[in-house]
């Protein structure tokens, strides 16, 4: 694996961490439309 790939994976991992932070901070559950209805 060359440096370019490592850099891209690292950037991807950081971006994923940002998304997880957004999820944990802003999640507002309890108002489900589709999921958990008896389809």
């Amino acid at each position, binding site marked *: 694996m060359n440096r370019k790939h490592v850099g891209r994976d690292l950037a991807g991992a950081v971006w*994923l961490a940002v*998304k997880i932070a957004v*999820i944990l901070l802003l999640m*507002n559950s309890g108002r*489900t439309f589709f999921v*958990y209805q008896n*389809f």
Partner: protein
Amino acid sequence: MFPGLDTGLSAHQGLFLNSWHFFAVAVLAVVCLRTIPMRYVRQAALLAFNFYFLSYFLYGWYPVLLLAGVLVGTYLIGLVKLKWGQNWPDGVVVVLVVLFWVFLFLVKDPDLLGPANPFHYRPVQLIGVSYLVFRSINYVVDVEILENRNFLTFVNFMIFFPTLLAGPIERYDRFEEFHSTFGYEEGPTLLPSLHRIANGLIKKFVLADNLMVFGIFMKPDQMELAWPLIWLGVMLQLAVIYLDFSGYCDIVIGLAALMGFPVCENFDRPYLARNVQNFWDRWHMSLTGFIRDYVFTPLTRLVMEKADRRRQFAWITAVYFFCMLLIALWHDTTWGFFVFGLLHGAALVGLQLFRKYLSPAVTRSGLGSLRDETAVAWAARALNYAFISMTILFWYFGVSGSLEIIKSMVKL
């Protein structure tokens, strides 16, 4: 649940995608399915995870027995069909498919047909019953051309836990291919799948659930809202449902890919659709694909074989309408969904009539090139988006409630 969350439901009522419990089960399932080298042990582990997940949605013996009946019944029908081979009449398959649909409607709505419905006095909550029935139809109709029809593969296919709640609707041939191999080696790598799950969580639990607060859903009386807010709320309908459902699909598609089962896609940017038919080509694609293969195509084939040549167009248009009504009523057997199906069916029929009778004249007049103009395309997309959003009102507000909202939108 994650800190600060309240779904309003107790832990005994399911295993929620945003719970730490589900997270732990998912991680364990991914690790097991990616590392266990012996095929049958890996498949048995998947079976255990499927039943563990199901156990949180089945209350009492009644739904368990019904589920067992569906599983064993479908498998036995498949065996009988295989044994009969060429002697199995087409009519029997048609009757079986119709019976599966009737069973689905009777289970989903115990009040349908009143006391004649066997579930009327004893309703049953069988989670993902639609997906079970769709998979049953897929298995029974196509059993001759399927490979690896052993019972373990069959049961894992029927109750595959990531897609059991709300799809996407997988087909047996695709499932068994990855069931017998290390499917993740052919799917996306770890990081893209994790991003897919994170994107789904953001769409579902951050965007959709927060947007709903600003829509008209959470208001005690939406008629009290200012006129622009009513418009905003109505126009948010499609956006919220898209984020909600496609977010859920992103989560399960990402999870299934990590487990080695790259399941089919369910959405293709439906908000870009230029007309109703194009919308259904892009929305809940696994459902429309299922209806196309197991309802629309057999019926149109029947029309081509039996109907008088001059009446074939009328019959095929009627089949479009019927399929749309079936899709609508599958969601729920209410008047609101019935009207939703009528409106979408009418739009589809209108589109077929336009294509047959007006489109050639439009092309001859030279106006046909307008279709390729960017402004015209975006106007069509905006109109289609508004139409879909307004028809979705009928899901939640019923016929009279929706008409009241539409009246207030145009200040009547």
